[in-house]
């Protein structure tokens, strides 16, 4: 006798799932948000901690990629200096659509404590931001919660419609 006989009539037992294209595409997108490895300052340490075993970003399908061409989300983790400003724009442009941006920490949100001549006062001056995470630096839990909110945002949008490219201006 088969010990592990599958009851096909019970919920989830049937090896068939009916859904809409929209849902399946959004399911795929929201559960494989590959993030660009983009630690700019101390927030990068928290981002690395989120990726490591204790907080384990892989559970969300978030895998850090070293190339913007393979990344879906740019987590701007840290202080953006004016010298580096042109490169964040270039990296953002190199990412393929659809793409999202999480601004992580006070420095990326508003310039934070660096109210000086050499710091960009908020990355939203240069690229469109989807999610702002408060904190200095935000705990890995905050980043995980932010990724889950981003997943929710992705699911709320229609995937079948051609994605409108996000432009700051």
């Amino acid at each position: 006798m088969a010990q592990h006989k599958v009851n096909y009539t019970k919920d989830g037992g049937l090896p068939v799932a009916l859904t809409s294209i929209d849902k399946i595409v959004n399911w795929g997108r929201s559960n494989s948000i590959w993030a660009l490895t983009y630690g700019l300052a101390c927030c990068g340490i928290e981002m690395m901690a989120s990726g490591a075993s204790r907080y384990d970003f892989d559970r969300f399908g978030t895998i850090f990629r070293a190339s913007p061409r393979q990344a879906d989300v740019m987590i701007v983790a840290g202080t953006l200096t004016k010298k580096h400003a042109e490169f964040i724009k270039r990296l953002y442009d190199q990412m393929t659509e659809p793409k999202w941006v999480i601004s992580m920490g006070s420095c990326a949100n508003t310039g934070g404590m660096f109210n000086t001549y050499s710091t960009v006062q908020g990355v939203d001056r240069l690229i469109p931001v989807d999610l702002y995470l408060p904190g200095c630096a935000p705990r890995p839990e905050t980043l995980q919660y932010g990724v889950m909110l981003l997943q929710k945002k992705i699911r709320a949008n229609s995937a079948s419609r051609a994605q409108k490219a996000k432009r700051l201006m």
Partner: protein
Amino acid sequence: MRAYTPKDDVQKKSYYTDRFFVSPQVPKFPVENDEVFTKDLEAIKAKFEVSEAYIQVEQMVVFIQPEDNYKVLELMKNELEYTQLSELSAIDWLAKENKFEVFYQMLSMNKRKRIRVKMFIDKDQAVNSVEKLFRSADWSEREMFDMFGIEANAHPFMKRILMPYDWQGFPLLKTYPLQGDEFAAWYEVDKIYGKEARDIIGPELRDTAKVDRYDSQRFARLGHEVPKGTKITGNEPKNEQSYQEEGGVFLIKKLNKKDSVVIDDPQR
């Protein structure tokens, strides 16, 4: 009990005359107090003009003429055993006496002594590079140029080191505003989007403590979020925030706290 002091006109009195705390000068001692420094100073004085010398915090400070700086450091390195240049930079005294003070911090591992060689230069005056003597001077002199605009003659690569190459202005000058001048304020916008984008992106918001609950461009009132740029009336509906939709998500189970079990037995 503390003695009572009348506080009627406390607002009218100005508490401080100086804007910042002015620390008292660290006492200076004559060079003769230290044997090693006396010999070193004699060796320098034999060949070069020394305008002032004293000991402060157990280190000798020697003021030399700016045109002698390479020769003095060469002498100190080759004959006096001061083989390391720990630090090199400048101090802006332009407001006080229209001069820069350039200093070289020297260290002798054999003698276990430090000497600070100082010299005054005019504005727009270049110094001789000591990069041929000490490799550490390479980046220090570039930084001095970057921050003060003091050029080092005969330096192999006299370019900015911290700020971008196309930066204008020298940030460590006392006349340079902390939050940047006009060029600095628009640097990234001008470079990436062009000058015509200034009106669209707008000026930098420097008051980070400012919170305006009717501003939907920069802030979202927690629990009452609206799309960016919406005009806020104050009657926004309450948004329940949760990380997942209530109805559940396709192929994903939502954690039900009631059904979950907390395992508190470490020996399980």
